[in-house]
């Protein structure tokens, strides 16, 4: 949706730049499909990560248990060994933790936690759970002597996500351990996600496809910008969360932390992001239409006409539109949520906890 909204902005600007409404006419009258490029390249970063990058990730160790062969100690030992190996051999070491599937709808859950202070990996086997709601079967817990394992490691571990990692449904998570310059080891959760597939570099690489489709014509240049900004719109939207992305690979290797405004799976954030995008698309379609189906009062009050000064009319009308139709519901919902949270005494979670939850939701959410 962000990609499509971005594409409509590019079309409006290109229309003003080239004049004569040529880009909009190509779309409305000649039925050009150029705007779809914004949608396609807007969704592409996740498509690349979950259809390709995930499978190109190599693993040095895979922990694969089944219901009749459950060994929490093996999980803890493997992870602890991988951490130390990364330090000793000064190379990246990857570990994959597989899920324990029982039937088409049942998995046994287990958890992994890195205790960086005491340099220990803890693994606990949980109950059998049902489906995506992960409802536990109360009689399925293992006796405590069979359900816990822990192992010590020697390296100093940097792990930004202090919450417990749950391994439960579909495919399990993986971890990468990187040796750092200061002698410590950095742990990354699902290391293939939000890396090169979510980068500014990728947008630049894909953008020339616009010229391949339409040549070096006004449409070609418009497609160039739609593709590049379409990819960037995805990265920019994701960046409002906590996890962030690796912006300039191969020049950078780490994810840049997000703006921490919201979480990627927050219901309200998603609703209002899509609401805003949908309304902006409607506004832009109206703006490039030869007959405007609605006019905003501010432009009329200031005596600005689209036929005389399109850019001025557009900016004033857009501001007016945002103030009248986009901001009010967002502000009302924001203050209503704040009020309810205050009344109920909801405790704010820490940055680390929020980041960890976001990462887990990214894995679970996208797979569903």
């Amino acid at each position, binding site marked *: 949706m962000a990609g499509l909204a971005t594409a409509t902005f590019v079309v409006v600007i290109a229309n003003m730049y080239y004049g004569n409404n040529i880009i909009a006419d190509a779309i409305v009258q000649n039925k050009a499909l150029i705007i779809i490029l914004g949608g396609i390249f807007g*969704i592409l970063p996740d498509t690349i990560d979950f*259809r390709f990058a995930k499978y*190109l990730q190599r693993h040095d160790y895979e922990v694969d248990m089944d219901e009749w062969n459950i060994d929490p100690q093996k999980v803890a030992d493997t992870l602890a060994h991988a951490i130390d190996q990364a330090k000793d051999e000064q190379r990246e070491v990857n570990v994959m933790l597989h899920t324990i599937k029982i039937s*088409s709808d049942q998995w046994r859950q287990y958890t992994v936690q890195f205790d960086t202070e005491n340099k220990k990996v803890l693994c606990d086997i949980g109950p059998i759970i*049902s*489906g995506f709601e992960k409802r536990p079967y109360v009689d399925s817990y293992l006796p405590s002597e069979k359900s816990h394992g822990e192992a010590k490691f020697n390296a100093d571990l940097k792990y930004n996500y202090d919450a417990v990692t749950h391994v439960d449904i579909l495919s399990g998570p993986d971890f990468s351990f990187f040796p750092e310059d200061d002698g410590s080891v950095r742990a990354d959760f699902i290391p293939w996600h939000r890396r090169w597939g979510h980068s500014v570099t990728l947008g630049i690489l894909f953008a020339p496809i616009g010229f391949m489709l339409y040549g070096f014509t006004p449409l070609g240049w418009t497609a160039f910008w739609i593709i590049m900004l379409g990819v960037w719109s995805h990265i920019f939207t994701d960046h409002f969360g906590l996890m962030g992305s690796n912006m300039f690979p191969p020049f950078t290797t780490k994810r840049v932390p997000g703006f921490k405004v919201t979480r990627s*799976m927050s219901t309200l954030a998603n609703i209002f992001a899509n609401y805003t995008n949908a309304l902006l698309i409607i506004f832009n379609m*109206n703006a490039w239409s030869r007959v405007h189906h609605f006019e905003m009062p501010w432009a009329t009050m200031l005596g600005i006409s689209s036929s005389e000064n399109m850019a001025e009319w557009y900016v004033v009308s857009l501001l007016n539109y945002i103030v009248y139709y986009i901001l009010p519901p967002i502000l009302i919902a924001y203050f209503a949520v704040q009020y309810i949270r205050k009344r109920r005494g909801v405790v704010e979670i820490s940055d680390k906890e929020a980041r960890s939850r976001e990462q887990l939701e990214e894995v679970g959410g996208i797979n569903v």
Partner: protein
Amino acid sequence: MGTAIGSLMSMLPGLHVYNVIGFFLLFYFTMGLVIDPMLMTLMLIGMLVSYAFVFTIPSIYFSAPDDSTMFILMPSQRYLKERKGHEAVVLIATGALIGVIAITIFVPIFMNVLGVIWDIAMPNMHWIIGAVIAFMLLSEFPKDFGRHKNPLHGLKEAWKTILAGYLTFFLSALLGIIVFSKTLVPVEHGFQSLMAPLIGLFATSSIILNLISKYEIPDQNLPKSVDADPREIAHGSLAGSVGGLFAAFIPAVTAGVGGYMASHAFAQKGDKSFLVSMGASRVVYYVGAIALFFLPTLHLRRGALAMGINLIFTPETVQQFYLVDAGIALAGLVSFFVVIYASRFLARVIPKINAKLLNLVVLGILVVLVYLMTSWQGLIIMSVATAIGLIPVLFNSRRSHCLAVILVPIWLNMSGISLGALLGLW
């Protein structure tokens, strides 16, 4: 009367209201002089509203696939397996009731806004539908458990389901282009030319899956409450209603696709919210299409019923819109109670019902229906469509890819591309 007929008919698995309205229209054409067209219209609307509610019953109780055929169970199937089929029905019916309330209240309120949005969107419909298709094709992620020998093996396993989905999409699109470009069924039944492919893609393929699956339906519990959080109901209803309205508004997009897009847009989580949204999106899609048809600022023809009604009736006045709106509300309320009581009854007797025999009977009914409406040519089209419809079922890809049968021809048509002519189908 429409609600009663629709409720009875909708209890049968695989039978769609759109497949039988053709018979009612033929009946009306012979009896047109003695039946008021508005009465006939309201009866057909009653049938549609009850279908949107009562379809829940066969979809929950008569389609329980086994572990060997399913990769992941849908929440409704999981509920049935866990003896909570009635609970699932109540959640879906609740969503549907909220959907009806949303239509009857909000469509009149936003009458003018919807008119303006339609005027703006109409010239851009080709790329909007194209974007929906792109989303369908790019948003399906691999269903695998991450156990691979090497990256190449991983990619191969991951892409199995995706490629099966693309194959389904391509074959459905090709079938759609052929059916839209050339009338293969007898010309006097040309208005039912989509019947055979749709029954094949969605109904008979499901019935065949039910027939080959090995499953036993456990005894069902009848709880006094569904124990759902109001936030889950609100979230599901909102997502479902928005998805359903989007589908009702945009040509060729259906409730399934609209609901799926809305679940992404609303970051939907949890079975209860999902079930509620299922009910809301179906009702808003089917019934909303009728409301938009009668809406004085729009008169939008969406879905087979609006097109069918348009053969006998032309909506003109605001009074007619409010009459239909009231009819929808009444039919919705009655259908809600029909679903709840029918589900309570079925939950008690379901282990005694031979679901396979029922599926077999419905398969027979569908074959006879297709033969009567579209002759032997229709049966051939239905067989081809059934084979295509089985691909996503057997390879665990999305069944919504079958919708390419209508999405692609309409999209091509709106984009000014005549593939039918290119293929020599004129």
